[in-house]
């Protein structure tokens, strides 16, 4: 996980899940091949996912990575 000083990665993962028939964290975790704890940590912005996982999430929700992840304050 990479941290860049002064930058925090925000995300819309929770909204994406809710838009997808109130999908649970467990279901999303299974769908993208990670544990539920990883989804929880990403949603709370405590964990920055790898590029690969970000792309898998974007592919799963059929959107761009920028539609899910953004730099807070920009």
């Amino acid at each position, binding site marked *: 996980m990479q941290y860049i000083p002064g930058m925090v990665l925000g995300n819309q993962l929770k909204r994406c899940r809710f838009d997808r028939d109130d999908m649970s964290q467990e279901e999303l975790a299974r769908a993208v*091949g990670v544990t539920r*704890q990883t989804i929880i940590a990403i949603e709370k912005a*405590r964990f920055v996912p790898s590029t690969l996982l970000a792309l898998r999430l974007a592919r799963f929700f059929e959107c761009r990575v920028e539609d899910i992840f953004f730099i807070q304050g920009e």
Partner: protein
Amino acid sequence: MASRVEVIVKLLLVALLVVAGVVAMVPRRRTAGRPVIGEKLFVATCAVGAICGATGLVVLFAWPQHVIAWHLWELAAMPLVLLYAYWIAMMRAAPTGQALDDKQDFDMTRAAATTWGLSVPAMCVTFALSDKSALNGGLWFPYFLFVTLLIDSGLTLYYFKRR
């Protein structure tokens, strides 16, 4: 008495190592698209690691004169060895060779770094007090092993479950 216990423990250890070897070698179906080391297995491994570490330390200070001769420290670590044998079997089934997900990987790395940082002062303190303790000779290695195992497993579990 001592030799009989030693023989029994040795036989048990050999039997468990054979089981671990068989488990590690058993071919498994490939599990594409799912985390290979799932949440339950990961948490169980951390918990077993912490329990093994604590048990090893208790055994070490309770029976310092028997812990090496009776192979008690190897016995205390054996549950974790069996679990890691299962990990190897699961990892062999991983299609990409990557068995852990992003966060598991990160949590284990962070716990390992913190453990290394904590183990240095812990060993320094123990070394300074070593004249008064029962630790001598070969007991240092199991002591180091169980201290680091306890800290590392406990921290990994903490980081992984922290909300």
